[in-house]
Protein backbone atom coordinates (compact mmCIF):
# COMPACT_ATOMS: atom_id res chain seq x y z
CA UNK A 1 0.00 0.00 0.00
CA UNK A 2 2.78 2.42 0.99
CA UNK A 3 4.60 1.65 -2.24
CA UNK A 4 1.57 2.46 -4.37
CA UNK A 5 0.76 5.61 -2.41
CA UNK A 6 4.27 6.95 -2.99
CA UNK A 7 3.40 7.87 -6.57
CA UNK A 8 0.33 10.07 -5.93
CA UNK A 9 1.75 11.62 -2.77
CA UNK A 10 5.04 12.57 -4.40
CA UNK A 11 3.09 13.88 -7.39
CA UNK A 12 0.93 16.05 -5.11
CA UNK A 13 4.00 17.29 -3.23
CA UNK A 14 5.76 18.30 -6.46
CA UNK A 15 2.54 19.93 -7.65
CA UNK A 16 2.25 21.95 -4.43
CA UNK A 17 5.92 22.85 -4.58
CA UNK A 18 5.76 24.17 -8.16
CA UNK A 19 2.50 26.08 -7.75
CA UNK A 20 2.11 27.23 -4.17
CA UNK A 21 5.08 26.68 -1.88
CA UNK A 22 7.67 28.35 -4.10
CA UNK A 23 5.59 31.53 -4.09
CA UNK A 24 5.75 31.78 -0.31
CA UNK A 25 9.16 33.38 -0.18
CA UNK A 26 11.37 34.92 2.47
CA UNK A 27 13.77 37.24 0.63
CA UNK A 28 14.54 34.92 -2.31
CA UNK A 29 14.35 31.67 -0.37
CA UNK A 30 11.46 29.26 -0.23
CA UNK A 31 10.58 26.00 1.47
CA UNK A 32 11.27 22.57 0.04
CA UNK A 33 8.15 20.57 0.78
CA UNK A 34 9.46 17.40 -0.85
CA UNK A 35 12.63 17.48 1.26
CA UNK A 36 10.60 17.98 4.45
CA UNK A 37 8.34 15.07 3.58
CA UNK A 38 11.30 12.81 2.82
CA UNK A 39 13.00 13.70 6.12
CA UNK A 40 9.81 13.24 8.16
CA UNK A 41 8.99 10.00 6.34
CA UNK A 42 12.46 8.58 6.97
CA UNK A 43 12.12 9.40 10.68
CA UNK A 44 9.08 7.16 11.05
CA UNK A 45 10.31 3.89 12.50
CA UNK A 46 7.48 1.73 11.19
CA UNK A 47 7.79 2.92 7.58
CA UNK A 48 9.01 0.40 5.04
CA UNK A 49 10.25 1.06 1.49
CA UNK A 50 11.36 4.61 2.44
CA UNK A 51 14.10 4.44 -0.17
CA UNK A 52 11.55 4.04 -2.94
CA UNK A 53 9.97 7.34 -1.81
CA UNK A 54 13.40 8.99 -1.78
CA UNK A 55 14.33 7.83 -5.27
CA UNK A 56 10.91 8.72 -6.66
CA UNK A 57 11.05 12.21 -5.11
CA UNK A 58 14.58 12.76 -6.41
CA UNK A 59 13.68 11.73 -9.95
CA UNK A 60 10.45 13.79 -9.95
CA UNK A 61 12.15 16.99 -8.79
CA UNK A 62 15.09 16.40 -11.14
CA UNK A 63 12.61 16.08 -14.01
CA UNK A 64 10.70 19.25 -13.15
CA UNK A 65 13.52 21.52 -12.02
CA UNK A 66 16.23 23.23 -14.03
CA UNK A 67 18.91 22.53 -11.42
CA UNK A 68 21.32 19.69 -12.31
CA UNK A 69 19.53 16.33 -12.06
CA UNK A 70 21.96 14.83 -9.58
CA UNK A 71 21.35 17.56 -6.95
CA UNK A 72 17.90 16.45 -5.74
CA UNK A 73 18.72 12.76 -6.18
CA UNK A 74 21.87 12.96 -4.05
CA UNK A 75 20.52 15.45 -1.52
CA UNK A 76 17.24 13.64 -0.86
CA UNK A 77 19.13 10.38 -0.47
CA UNK A 78 21.58 12.09 1.89
CA UNK A 79 18.76 13.63 3.93
CA UNK A 80 16.97 10.29 4.22
CA UNK A 81 20.21 8.54 5.20
CA UNK A 82 20.89 11.16 7.88
CA UNK A 83 17.35 10.82 9.21
CA UNK A 84 17.66 7.02 9.39
CA UNK A 85 21.06 7.35 11.03
CA UNK A 86 19.98 9.66 13.85
CA UNK A 87 16.74 7.76 14.22
CA UNK A 88 18.56 4.52 14.93
CA UNK A 89 21.51 5.75 16.93
CA UNK A 90 21.15 9.12 18.54
CA UNK A 91 17.95 10.45 20.07
CA UNK A 92 14.55 9.18 20.91
CA UNK A 93 12.84 12.57 20.49
CA UNK A 94 11.47 12.60 16.93
CA UNK A 95 10.58 16.32 16.86
CA UNK A 96 14.12 17.32 17.81
CA UNK A 97 15.46 14.94 15.19
CA UNK A 98 13.12 16.45 12.62
CA UNK A 99 14.41 19.94 13.34
CA UNK A 100 18.03 18.86 13.34
CA UNK A 101 17.83 16.88 10.12
CA UNK A 102 15.81 19.70 8.48
CA UNK A 103 18.51 22.27 9.28
CA UNK A 104 21.36 20.06 8.11
CA UNK A 105 19.64 18.80 4.96
CA UNK A 106 18.32 22.28 3.98
CA UNK A 107 21.80 23.77 4.22
CA UNK A 108 23.25 20.77 2.40
CA UNK A 109 20.82 20.88 -0.56
CA UNK A 110 21.08 24.66 -0.95
CA UNK A 111 24.87 24.73 -0.75
CA UNK A 112 25.08 21.77 -3.12
CA UNK A 113 22.75 23.51 -5.57
CA UNK A 114 24.78 26.70 -5.32
CA UNK A 115 28.06 24.88 -5.95
CA UNK A 116 26.67 22.87 -8.87
CA UNK A 117 25.32 26.04 -10.53
CA UNK A 118 28.59 27.91 -10.02
CA UNK A 119 30.47 24.95 -11.51
CA UNK A 120 28.14 25.17 -14.52
CA UNK A 121 29.15 28.78 -15.00
CA UNK A 122 26.20 30.58 -13.46
CA UNK A 123 27.25 33.83 -11.85
CA UNK A 124 25.99 33.83 -8.24
CA UNK A 125 27.85 35.58 -5.46
CA UNK A 126 28.35 33.44 -2.36
CA UNK A 127 27.22 36.15 0.02
CA UNK A 128 24.12 36.87 -2.06
CA UNK A 129 23.33 33.15 -2.23
CA UNK A 130 23.86 32.75 1.49
CA UNK A 131 21.86 35.78 2.62
CA UNK A 132 19.14 35.75 -0.01
CA UNK A 133 18.51 32.01 -0.46
CA UNK A 134 20.31 29.58 1.84
CA UNK A 135 19.49 31.10 5.23
CA UNK A 136 15.90 32.15 4.37
CA UNK A 137 15.15 28.75 2.83
CA UNK A 138 16.45 26.98 5.91
CA UNK A 139 14.30 29.20 8.15
CA UNK A 140 11.13 28.55 6.14
CA UNK A 141 11.87 24.83 6.14
CA UNK A 142 12.18 25.00 9.93
CA UNK A 143 8.81 26.77 10.14
CA UNK A 144 7.14 24.11 8.04
CA UNK A 145 8.95 21.19 9.67
CA UNK A 146 6.47 20.74 12.51
CA UNK A 147 3.20 20.73 10.49
CA UNK A 148 4.74 18.51 7.82
CA UNK A 149 5.98 16.12 10.51
CA UNK A 150 2.48 15.94 12.01
CA UNK A 151 0.90 15.13 8.65
CA UNK A 152 3.59 12.57 7.80
CA UNK A 153 3.25 10.91 11.21
CA UNK A 154 -0.51 10.52 10.75
CA UNK A 155 -0.03 9.20 7.21
CA UNK A 156 2.59 6.70 8.39
CA UNK A 157 0.36 5.60 11.26
CA UNK A 158 -2.49 5.10 8.82
CA UNK A 159 -0.38 3.14 6.33
CA UNK A 160 1.70 1.14 8.80
CA UNK A 161 -0.28 0.95 12.06
CA UNK A 162 1.84 0.13 15.09
CA UNK A 163 0.44 -2.52 17.39
CA UNK A 164 0.52 -1.46 21.05
CA UNK A 165 1.72 -4.30 23.30
CA UNK A 166 1.42 -4.16 27.07
Amino acid at each position, binding site marked *: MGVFLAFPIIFILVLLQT*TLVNQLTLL*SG*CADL*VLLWIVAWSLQKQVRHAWLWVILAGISVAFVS*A*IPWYVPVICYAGAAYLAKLVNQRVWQSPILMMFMVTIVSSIFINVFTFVSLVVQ*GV*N*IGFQTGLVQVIIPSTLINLLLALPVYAVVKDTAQWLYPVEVTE
Partner: protein
Amino acid sequence: MKKLSPRTLQSITIGLVVLGILVLALSGLLNQIVGKAIDPLVSVQGWFASRVQAVVEFFTIPRDVATLREENAALQNQVSQLQSELLEARQQLTETDILYALLDYARSRPDNKYVAASVIGRDTSPFVKYIIINHGSDDGIQKGMPVVTEQGLVGKIEAVTASAARVQLITDPGSIINVRIEEAQTEGQVEGSVTGDVSLEMVDPGIDLLEGDLILTSGLGGVYPSDILIGQLIAPQQEENDLFQSASIQPVVDFVNLRAVLIITNFKPVDYSPLVD
Protein backbone atom coordinates in the same frame (compact mmCIF):
# COMPACT_ATOMS: atom_id res chain seq x y z
CA MET B 1 -107.69 64.06 30.42
CA LYS B 2 -107.48 60.71 28.97
CA LYS B 3 -105.39 58.38 31.03
CA LEU B 4 -102.37 56.83 29.15
CA SER B 5 -102.51 53.13 28.82
CA PRO B 6 -99.68 51.16 30.44
CA ARG B 7 -98.55 49.91 27.00
CA THR B 8 -98.22 53.45 25.66
CA LEU B 9 -96.34 54.49 28.81
CA GLN B 10 -93.97 51.56 28.34
CA SER B 11 -93.31 52.55 24.70
CA ILE B 12 -92.65 56.16 25.67
CA THR B 13 -90.26 55.04 28.47
CA ILE B 14 -88.35 52.76 26.06
CA GLY B 15 -88.22 55.56 23.48
CA LEU B 16 -86.87 58.01 26.04
CA VAL B 17 -84.25 55.51 27.24
CA VAL B 18 -83.15 54.85 23.61
CA LEU B 19 -83.10 58.58 22.94
CA GLY B 20 -81.05 59.14 26.09
CA ILE B 21 -78.57 56.45 25.08
CA LEU B 22 -78.28 57.97 21.60
CA VAL B 23 -77.69 61.40 23.11
CA LEU B 24 -75.03 59.95 25.43
CA ALA B 25 -73.38 58.09 22.51
CA LEU B 26 -73.40 61.12 20.27
CA SER B 27 -71.99 63.32 23.01
CA GLY B 28 -69.15 60.78 23.64
CA LEU B 29 -70.07 60.10 27.22
CA LEU B 30 -70.97 56.52 26.43
CA ASN B 31 -67.48 55.52 25.23
CA GLN B 32 -66.03 55.24 28.70
CA ILE B 33 -68.86 53.05 29.85
CA VAL B 34 -68.71 50.88 26.71
CA GLY B 35 -64.92 50.69 26.94
CA LYS B 36 -65.00 49.43 30.48
CA ALA B 37 -67.61 46.88 29.51
CA ILE B 38 -65.68 45.67 26.40
CA ASP B 39 -62.15 45.54 27.84
CA PRO B 40 -62.64 42.25 29.69
CA LEU B 41 -64.17 40.77 26.60
CA VAL B 42 -61.18 41.84 24.51
CA SER B 43 -58.79 40.35 27.06
CA VAL B 44 -60.68 37.10 27.01
CA GLN B 45 -60.72 37.16 23.22
CA GLY B 46 -56.95 37.78 23.13
CA TRP B 47 -56.17 35.04 25.61
CA PHE B 48 -58.29 32.59 23.71
CA ALA B 49 -56.79 33.56 20.35
CA SER B 50 -53.25 33.15 21.66
CA ARG B 51 -54.04 29.69 23.00
CA VAL B 52 -55.65 28.67 19.74
CA GLN B 53 -52.61 29.99 17.88
CA ALA B 54 -50.31 28.01 20.16
CA VAL B 55 -52.23 24.83 19.47
CA VAL B 56 -52.18 25.51 15.72
CA GLU B 57 -48.45 26.17 15.79
CA PHE B 58 -47.84 23.04 17.78
CA PHE B 59 -49.20 21.02 14.91
CA THR B 60 -47.92 23.10 11.99
CA ILE B 61 -44.46 24.55 13.00
CA PRO B 62 -42.43 21.31 12.95
CA ARG B 63 -43.40 20.77 9.36
CA ASP B 64 -42.58 24.39 8.51
CA VAL B 65 -39.11 24.17 10.14
CA ALA B 66 -38.31 21.09 8.14
CA THR B 67 -39.47 22.86 4.99
CA LEU B 68 -37.48 25.96 5.90
CA ARG B 69 -34.39 23.90 6.55
CA GLU B 70 -34.74 22.25 3.17
CA GLU B 71 -35.26 25.60 1.51
CA ASN B 72 -32.32 27.06 3.42
CA ALA B 73 -30.05 24.22 2.35
CA ALA B 74 -31.22 24.57 -1.25
CA LEU B 75 -30.62 28.33 -1.15
CA GLN B 76 -27.19 27.87 0.41
CA ASN B 77 -26.32 25.41 -2.34
CA GLN B 78 -27.56 27.88 -4.89
CA VAL B 79 -25.50 30.69 -3.33
CA SER B 80 -22.39 28.48 -3.31
CA GLN B 81 -22.99 27.54 -6.92
CA LEU B 82 -23.50 31.17 -7.94
CA GLN B 83 -20.40 32.25 -6.05
CA SER B 84 -18.44 29.51 -7.77
CA GLU B 85 -19.81 30.59 -11.16
CA LEU B 86 -18.99 34.21 -10.35
CA LEU B 87 -15.44 33.27 -9.44
CA GLU B 88 -15.12 31.23 -12.62
CA ALA B 89 -16.53 34.09 -14.68
CA ARG B 90 -14.08 36.55 -13.13
CA GLN B 91 -11.25 34.11 -13.77
CA GLN B 92 -12.35 33.72 -17.39
CA LEU B 93 -12.64 37.47 -17.72
CA THR B 94 -9.09 37.93 -16.48
CA GLU B 95 -7.82 35.22 -18.79
CA THR B 96 -9.77 36.73 -21.68
CA ASP B 97 -8.21 40.14 -20.97
CA ILE B 98 -4.75 38.58 -20.97
CA LEU B 99 -5.46 36.66 -24.17
CA TYR B 100 -6.86 39.77 -25.88
CA ALA B 101 -3.72 41.68 -24.95
CA LEU B 102 -1.56 38.86 -26.30
CA LEU B 103 -3.68 38.73 -29.46
CA ASP B 104 -3.26 42.47 -29.96
CA TYR B 105 0.48 42.06 -29.59
CA ALA B 106 0.53 39.16 -32.06
CA ARG B 107 -1.51 41.19 -34.58
CA SER B 108 0.89 44.11 -34.25
CA ARG B 109 3.72 41.83 -35.38
CA PRO B 110 2.26 39.76 -38.23
CA ASP B 111 5.67 38.49 -39.35
CA ASN B 112 5.97 36.23 -36.34
CA LYS B 113 4.00 33.09 -35.63
CA TYR B 114 2.88 32.62 -32.05
CA VAL B 115 1.60 29.88 -29.79
CA ALA B 116 -0.14 31.09 -26.64
CA ALA B 117 0.45 29.12 -23.45
CA SER B 118 -0.52 29.34 -19.79
CA VAL B 119 1.95 29.31 -16.93
CA ILE B 120 1.28 26.16 -14.89
CA GLY B 121 4.18 26.16 -12.48
CA ARG B 122 7.50 27.50 -11.36
CA ASP B 123 10.81 25.86 -10.64
CA THR B 124 11.15 24.06 -7.31
CA SER B 125 14.55 25.60 -6.54
CA PRO B 126 14.88 29.19 -5.33
CA PHE B 127 18.28 29.46 -7.04
CA VAL B 128 16.87 29.45 -10.56
CA LYS B 129 14.05 31.38 -12.23
CA TYR B 130 12.12 29.14 -14.57
CA ILE B 131 8.44 28.71 -15.37
CA ILE B 132 6.58 25.70 -16.73
CA ILE B 133 4.05 26.24 -19.53
CA ASN B 134 1.28 23.97 -20.78
CA HIS B 135 2.42 23.54 -24.40
CA GLY B 136 5.21 21.33 -25.67
CA SER B 137 6.59 19.66 -28.75
CA ASP B 138 3.09 18.48 -29.78
CA ASP B 139 2.28 22.15 -30.40
CA GLY B 140 5.47 22.83 -32.33
CA ILE B 141 7.45 24.20 -29.39
CA GLN B 142 11.21 23.65 -29.63
CA LYS B 143 14.16 24.37 -27.42
CA GLY B 144 15.53 27.89 -27.82
CA MET B 145 12.31 29.57 -29.01
CA PRO B 146 11.82 33.06 -27.55
CA VAL B 147 8.95 33.65 -25.15
CA VAL B 148 7.24 37.04 -24.87
CA THR B 149 4.13 38.75 -23.56
CA GLU B 150 2.41 41.85 -24.90
CA GLN B 151 4.67 43.81 -22.54
CA GLY B 152 8.03 42.45 -23.59
CA LEU B 153 10.58 39.66 -23.38
CA VAL B 154 10.00 36.82 -20.91
CA GLY B 155 12.78 34.36 -21.76
CA LYS B 156 13.40 31.31 -23.92
CA ILE B 157 12.37 27.67 -24.03
CA GLU B 158 14.97 25.62 -22.22
CA ALA B 159 13.46 22.11 -22.15
CA VAL B 160 10.49 20.53 -23.90
CA THR B 161 8.26 17.50 -23.34
CA ALA B 162 5.29 16.48 -25.48
CA SER B 163 2.78 18.60 -23.59
CA ALA B 164 4.81 21.02 -21.49
CA ALA B 165 7.93 23.12 -21.64
CA ARG B 166 10.30 24.84 -19.25
CA VAL B 167 11.10 28.51 -19.88
CA GLN B 168 14.24 30.22 -18.63
CA LEU B 169 13.22 33.72 -17.53
CA ILE B 170 15.42 36.72 -18.19
CA THR B 171 15.64 37.07 -14.39
CA ASP B 172 17.42 33.71 -14.06
CA PRO B 173 21.03 34.08 -12.85
CA GLY B 174 22.17 32.02 -15.84
CA SER B 175 20.46 34.26 -18.39
CA ILE B 176 22.58 36.65 -20.48
CA ILE B 177 20.97 38.65 -23.31
CA ASN B 178 22.61 40.94 -25.80
CA VAL B 179 20.76 44.24 -25.80
CA ARG B 180 20.88 47.72 -27.18
CA ILE B 181 19.99 50.88 -25.32
CA GLU B 182 17.56 52.82 -27.45
CA GLU B 183 18.45 56.43 -26.58
CA ALA B 184 22.17 55.95 -25.99
CA GLN B 185 22.57 54.01 -29.25
CA THR B 186 24.92 51.51 -27.64
CA GLU B 187 24.96 47.85 -26.73
CA GLY B 188 25.39 45.80 -23.59
CA GLN B 189 24.29 42.65 -21.83
CA VAL B 190 21.34 42.06 -19.55
CA GLU B 191 21.93 39.55 -16.77
CA GLY B 192 19.56 38.01 -14.27
CA SER B 193 20.32 37.26 -10.65
CA VAL B 194 19.34 34.94 -7.86
CA THR B 195 17.18 37.69 -6.34
CA GLY B 196 15.18 38.09 -9.56
CA ASP B 197 16.65 41.53 -10.27
CA VAL B 198 17.87 42.32 -13.77
CA SER B 199 20.95 44.41 -14.49
CA LEU B 200 22.65 45.92 -17.50
CA GLU B 201 26.33 45.05 -17.79
CA MET B 202 29.25 45.47 -20.20
CA VAL B 203 28.36 48.98 -21.31
CA ASP B 204 31.06 51.25 -22.68
CA PRO B 205 32.06 53.65 -19.84
CA GLY B 206 32.19 56.55 -22.29
CA ILE B 207 28.44 56.39 -22.90
CA ASP B 208 26.05 58.51 -20.84
CA LEU B 209 23.33 56.28 -19.48
CA LEU B 210 20.16 58.03 -18.42
CA GLU B 211 17.36 56.80 -16.23
CA GLY B 212 14.36 55.82 -18.30
CA ASP B 213 16.35 54.65 -21.34
CA LEU B 214 14.63 51.74 -23.04
CA ILE B 215 16.44 48.40 -23.26
CA LEU B 216 15.66 46.21 -26.27
CA THR B 217 17.10 42.96 -27.58
CA SER B 218 19.81 43.59 -30.15
CA GLY B 219 19.49 40.27 -31.94
CA LEU B 220 23.24 39.82 -31.66
CA GLY B 221 24.18 36.19 -31.21
CA GLY B 222 20.98 34.94 -32.79
CA VAL B 223 19.44 33.76 -29.53
CA TYR B 224 16.59 36.32 -29.53
CA PRO B 225 14.97 38.34 -32.30
CA SER B 226 15.86 42.01 -32.28
CA ASP B 227 13.80 44.90 -30.92
CA ILE B 228 11.88 43.13 -28.20
CA LEU B 229 11.43 45.39 -25.21
CA ILE B 230 13.04 44.22 -21.97
CA GLY B 231 12.71 47.16 -19.62
CA GLN B 232 13.75 50.61 -18.57
CA LEU B 233 17.08 51.64 -17.22
CA ILE B 234 17.23 52.78 -13.61
CA ALA B 235 20.15 53.70 -11.37
CA PRO B 236 23.23 53.70 -13.63
CA GLN B 237 26.43 52.91 -11.72
CA GLN B 238 29.95 53.70 -12.80
CA GLU B 239 33.03 53.36 -10.64
CA GLU B 240 36.07 55.41 -11.60
CA ASN B 241 38.40 52.68 -12.78
CA ASP B 242 35.84 50.13 -13.99
CA LEU B 243 36.25 48.76 -17.48
CA PHE B 244 32.50 48.78 -18.01
CA GLN B 245 29.57 50.54 -16.47
CA SER B 246 26.41 48.86 -15.24
CA ALA B 247 22.86 49.75 -14.29
CA SER B 248 19.77 48.26 -12.76
CA ILE B 249 16.83 47.54 -15.05
CA GLN B 250 13.12 47.67 -14.30
CA PRO B 251 11.67 44.85 -16.45
CA VAL B 252 8.44 45.63 -18.26
CA VAL B 253 7.10 42.13 -17.62
CA ASP B 254 5.60 41.40 -14.21
CA PHE B 255 7.24 38.04 -13.56
CA VAL B 256 5.48 37.51 -10.24
CA ASN B 257 2.01 37.58 -11.77
CA LEU B 258 2.87 36.01 -15.12
CA ARG B 259 -0.19 34.01 -16.25
CA ALA B 260 0.09 33.57 -20.02
CA VAL B 261 2.84 33.91 -22.59
CA LEU B 262 3.41 33.78 -26.34
CA ILE B 263 6.06 31.57 -27.89
CA ILE B 264 7.51 32.81 -31.19
CA THR B 265 7.56 29.58 -33.17
CA ASN B 266 9.04 30.76 -36.47
CA PHE B 267 12.26 32.07 -34.94
CA LYS B 268 15.16 29.64 -35.18
CA PRO B 269 17.93 30.44 -32.70
CA VAL B 270 21.50 30.01 -33.88
CA ASP B 271 23.11 26.90 -32.45
CA TYR B 272 26.76 27.59 -31.62
CA SER B 273 27.43 24.30 -29.91
CA PRO B 274 29.26 22.64 -32.88
CA LEU B 275 31.64 25.63 -33.00
CA VAL B 276 32.21 25.62 -29.24
CA ASP B 277 32.80 21.86 -29.06
